[in-house]
């Protein structure tokens, strides 16, 4: 392979690597958001569980407080928690996957770097 093609390939790989890192950052941010949502919903669940059955519960929808049955509120929060846990699992998988991909890319990049250096050395000798 000529030096120029090598270099072109190398730059392409670098761009791919940067994209991978960007994706990773995005996943980490997503996980953080999910974590805080999980904490908030868990707190709401705890509080709803502490309320007596006759308590009046409202949900803020837009600018209106709508009365909801306590059981309904509990099941809504429960569903929300399930959803968040599912999403967290999905993001965790994405993160693991992206870590593996980044590592492989890194390996490939350092291999290519060596190749380029070798090509440079041979070119210099001629």
């Amino acid at each position, binding site marked *: 392979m000529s030096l120029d093609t090598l270099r072109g390939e190398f730059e392409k790989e670098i761009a791919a690597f940067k994209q991978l890192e960007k994706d990773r950052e995005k996943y980490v941010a997503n996980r953080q958001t999910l974590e805080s949502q999980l904490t*908030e*919903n868990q*707190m*709401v669940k705890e*509080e*709803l569980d502490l*309320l007596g059955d006759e*308590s*009046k*519960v*409202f*949900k*803020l*929808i837009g600018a209106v*407080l709508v009365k*909801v049955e306590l059981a309904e*509120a509990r099941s809504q*929060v429960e569903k*929300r928690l399930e959803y968040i846990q599912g999403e967290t699992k999905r993001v965790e998988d994405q993160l693991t996957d992206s870590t593996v991909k980044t590592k492989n890319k890194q390996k490939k990049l350092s291999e290519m770097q060596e190749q380029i250096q070798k090509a440079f050395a041979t070119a210099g000798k001629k």
Partner: protein
Amino acid sequence: MAESGAVQISQLSVEQLNHLQKQLEEELTFFATSLESLRGFAEKVTQSVQAVDDLQKKERGAASLIPLTESMYIRGELMDPQTTLVELGTGFYAEVPTTKAKDFFERKHRKIVENTEKIEKILSEKRFTLSAITEALQAKIADQISNLPLNAAK
């Protein structure tokens, strides 16, 4: 990393140390920001506890000013000092007796304080690790400088 215990910091390369240092600094910033907002929340909850206390002393018919905006109020009369509407989070509100409201805010406050303490602990641990890494990094660099061929020739 430090918590693995298996890897000695002194055995890491300058590059790895640099990377670790950067990562730790980012984590420190993150936790410091979290701590800051937790303290803000604690302050708000304390205000709510205070408000509940004030409310409990009032009787039906007590005059009050109701804020419509932060700088505009209308006159109001307290109809029921025994009941309050508290925000549970995620858009849910519950109507609870004033005494229960106080319990609620105190519970919330306790939780915030617990988390604040947790984060303070993490922060001081991370700061400790960071200073160990910075030290190792400086030692490494000093070592490399003294081993430069230029100096070795002297």
